[in-house]
Each structure stands twice: as C-alpha cells, then as structure tokens.
C-alpha cells in the first residue's frame, strides 16, 4: 500500500504505470474485488456526478435562497464569447458551481472527497470532456487518479473542514483534480505530484467559515476557484514547473496549519465570513435567531 505521494509516484514509475492504474490495483488488492466490479462502482459515481452537473446547469435554488443559478450565469456569459479567462477554466468553474448548487439544494451528489468540496473534481472533468473527448475509461481513470492523491491526504492530514478547515476540503479536492488533469493530458506521475503540490500550496490556510453553518456561502464559489486553481496548476506542472517543497511536505504543512487553526474557523459558523454583519444577518433571516 502506498502511504505517501512519493511512494505512489515511485510505484507508478517503477512499474511504468499510470497513477490511476496503481490505485485500481491497490483497490483490487485490499478489497479482493475484481477490476470489473471496481470500475463498475466508479462508473456509478461518475454517472451521479454527470447528472448533478446537468441538473445544476439547468438552474437550481437552495431552500435558504442563498445559492443557485450562478452556474447558469457563467454558461450564458461563455456563450457570448467575450470572456477573459480560458473557456476550459470558465466551463469548469460553471460545472463545479453546478454540482455544489445541487448539493446545497439537498440534491444527490458524489462526495469528492467531501460534499462541500464535491464540485471541483467533476467540474474540471466535465470541462475537459468537452475539449478533449476522453473515453469513458479515461474519465474513470481521472477519478482513480484524483482518489489516489485524496487517499494520501486523508490518511496523512485530513479531508474534514471541522478538523482542518477549507484547505482540507476544497484544497484537497483542487489538488486531486490538478493531478488528474495532468494524467489525462499524458503528463508523468511526477508532474501529477507537482500539480497537486502547486495547487495545495495556494490553498493553505483557507478557513471553513460557512454562513449560517450552511454549505453554501462561501462554499459554492470556493469550489469554482478551486477548479480554476487546479487547471492553472496542472498547466504549470505540464510546462515543467516543479514545487520547491515536495508534495508530501505540503500535505504535512496543511495538516499542521489545520491543527493550529482556531475552532471558530473550522466549520463552526463562529468566525470569518459567518461572523460578518451580513453573515449574521443572513443567519438570523434563515433561522429566525442566531445560533450563538
């Protein structure tokens, strides 16, 4: 079993295999299930992600009224063709928000690695799908690669906002997506790790401060920017840029930052944006009175 990104990359290089393949083989080894069963289960997850993106692009509103409809706005803006960022980035931003808007509306999603950060991996994947026309098998490989990096983060740091802040959720998701993008673009396992490191470095310290304790503000837009971050970092890694701090050490730093982050900024709705005058006003409007 690989426990670190270094071990994961080493295994891939040694056997001349992709990261996704190492992940699939480990899953076969640990669960005793066949490759077909494992691929079929991932296909179910992929299918749920696809439906959530479609539903979000159709326009959805949360019960609180705080979020919804932003994914559609970006799509309409894209159609006009006057955008500044690249079309893949904006499509990914839109599809990431689509997923989280569905999540906020208590719709069905697939946690990647969590529900609050469920937009980044599918958002980037379905934006790349439009551009690169990957096979279904390549799309599944994307999820296994993302899963492999998430696996290391979850076991060495955290993927919980309550334990590690938003850096542990959207930060992890963005790093996972960046690595998966690199593999889909035929980058090397080392470049996957660099992309993950570059992404996560730029998410360090991100707090979890949901307004009214709802997974809506700022979660939906953080997924949007997580997706953008992942794509840019993937391009940087594919350009040959490396992280001076190795990926495993970035993950270690993320863990320690999470530990030293005050509780008010770890999914308690007590600090950050949740504690702003507008945040408190929204909370009161939704629940009738402040939680604390």
């Amino acid at each position, binding site marked *: 079993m690989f426990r670190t990104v270094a071990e994961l990359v080493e295994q891939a290089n040694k056997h001349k295999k992709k990261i996704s393949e190492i992940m699939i083989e480990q899953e076969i080894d640990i669960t005793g299930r066949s490759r077909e069963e494992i691929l079929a289960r991932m296909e179910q997850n992929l299918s749920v992600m696809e439906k959530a993106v479609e539903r979000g692009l159709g326009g959805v509103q949360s019960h609180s009224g705080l979020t919804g409809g932003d994914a559609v706005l970006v799509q309409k803006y894209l159609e006009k063709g006057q955008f500044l960022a690249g079309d893949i980035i904006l499509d990914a931003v839109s599809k990431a928000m689509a997923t989280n808007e569905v999540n906020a509306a208590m719709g069905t999603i697939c*946690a990647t690695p969590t529900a609050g950060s469920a937009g980044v991996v599918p958002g980037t994947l379905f934006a790349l799908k439009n551009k690169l026309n990957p096979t279904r098998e390549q799309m599944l490989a994307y999820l296994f690669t993302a899963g492999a990096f998430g696996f290391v983060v*979850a076991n060495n740091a955290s993927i919980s906002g309550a334990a590690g802040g938003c850096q542990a959720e959207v930060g992890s998701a963005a790093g996972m997506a960046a690595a998966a993008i690199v593999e889909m673009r035929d980058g090397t396992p080392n470049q996957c790790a660099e992309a993950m490191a570059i992404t996560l470095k730029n998410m360090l310290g991100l707090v979890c401060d949901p307004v009214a304790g709802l997974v809506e503000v700022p979660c939906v837009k953080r997924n949007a920017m997580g997706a953008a971050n992942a794509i840019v970092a993937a391009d940087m890694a594919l350009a040959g840029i490396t992280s001076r701090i190795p990926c495993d050490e970035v993950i270690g730093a993320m863990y320690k930052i999470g530990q030293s982050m005050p509780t008010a900024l770890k999914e308690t709705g007590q600090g950050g944006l949740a504690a702003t005058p507008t945040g408190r006003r929204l909370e009161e409007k939704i629940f009738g009175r402040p939680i604390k």
Partner: protein
Amino acid sequence: MKKNYTLFLVITSLVGGCEVKYKSVFDIIGPIMIGPSSSHTAGASRIGRVARSLFGREPKWAKISFYGSFAQTYRGHGTDVAIVGGLLDFDTFDKRMIDSINIARQKGIALQFIIEDAIPVHPNTARVRIGDENGELELVGISIGGGKIEVIELDGFSLRLSGNHPAILVFHHDKFGTIASVSNVLAKYLINIGHMEVSRKEVGKQALMTIEVDQTIDPSILKELEKLDNISKVTKIVE
C-alpha cells in the same frame, strides 16, 4: 438471559486508531449522497444507521446529543435530519432523508435533540440514545470527514473498530477462559482474527470483546458463540 442479535450493517466504515483510516478509493470518491455535507449529513446518517442496526429494530424514542461543530452547525447542515434518517435505516443517498423528521414523527418516534457545550475529542461528535419498551442502546459516533465514521463508544464500552473488516462484538461476563473459548470457536471455522480488543467497565462484570476478522462470518457461528458460557450477546458488523 441470552439474547440473539445477528446484525448486518451496511456501512462502509467503522474505523479504529490502528492502520490507515481510509482504505478504499471509494472513501475518497464517494459516497453517493444527499447534500449538503459529507461529514455532517452523510456521516451523521451513518452514525444513526449503525445505532439502528445494532439496536435491531425501529426505536420508539431517540435522544440525540450534538457536540463541537455538530452542535454549532447542525441546523444548517441538516445533521438532525440525517441522523434521524439513519435511525429510520435510510442510506446516504435515500431521497426520503430530507423528510426524515416528519416521517419519524408520523411513526410516533419521540425525538429529542440536545446541544452540548462540552468540548469533544473530535469536533464532529454525536451521542445517540435510542430505545423502546424492550431495551435501550447508547452509542457515541464521530464523523471524521468525507462521510467516514467511527463508533468510539457502545453502551458505555470504549470501542475501536477498523470497520474495513467484518467484526464480531461479543458482550460477555469478564471471566477467565471466555476469550479463549470464543477464539477456539473461530479457529474451528478457520476464521482468522486480524485485530481484537477487550473493554470492561469493572473487573468481573460486563465486558465487550471486539474482534475483527478476515473472513465473512456465517450466522450459525454467532449462534454457536452465544451458546458458550458467560456470553450475553453476540453482534456482527460487516462492511
């Protein structure tokens, strides 16, 4: 008096401190769930569902205490809705989840939510007490992220399960030879013990054996274990 409980829990995770916490790629990419939070909604529903499965039937009442982040944000995350959904045996992706509190009330289940000030070891902690006229069960669960949970206490016994393997829970009288007799039965059926621990409240009183095994456990083996001396209840947990 011996009671017979054979329980099959459909959960993907019950984790202890040993080994790695996340073992499968589907702990990371998954679960498929109703939003909005994997830890505060999906994880919470799994805590409720473990309690329900261990109890073996629908409870008539439930007292649910929230600690830490659960206490602060349960309304926004629907943690109360999710945990009740779990008590109703709903899976993380069950669309009835959203309406679980109404469904429970229609069934006549008395619900009480308690917001605790105490600072828990883990920020996402819930204590679930459920019961009916025939018995009660108390369980403490923590939701560690991405929908994964750990049960850290059951009926006053500390518990450490890796949950990545099938497990047998044996409630027994704390007396010499009991552990040996249980392991003898497992050996007879070629079942290998991967991890085992014993927790007791007092010397010579009730104790709990938690045994993780590598093979699936046939219900007949549980029946055989229950017939042994000093055993009061045997429960099985599978992934």
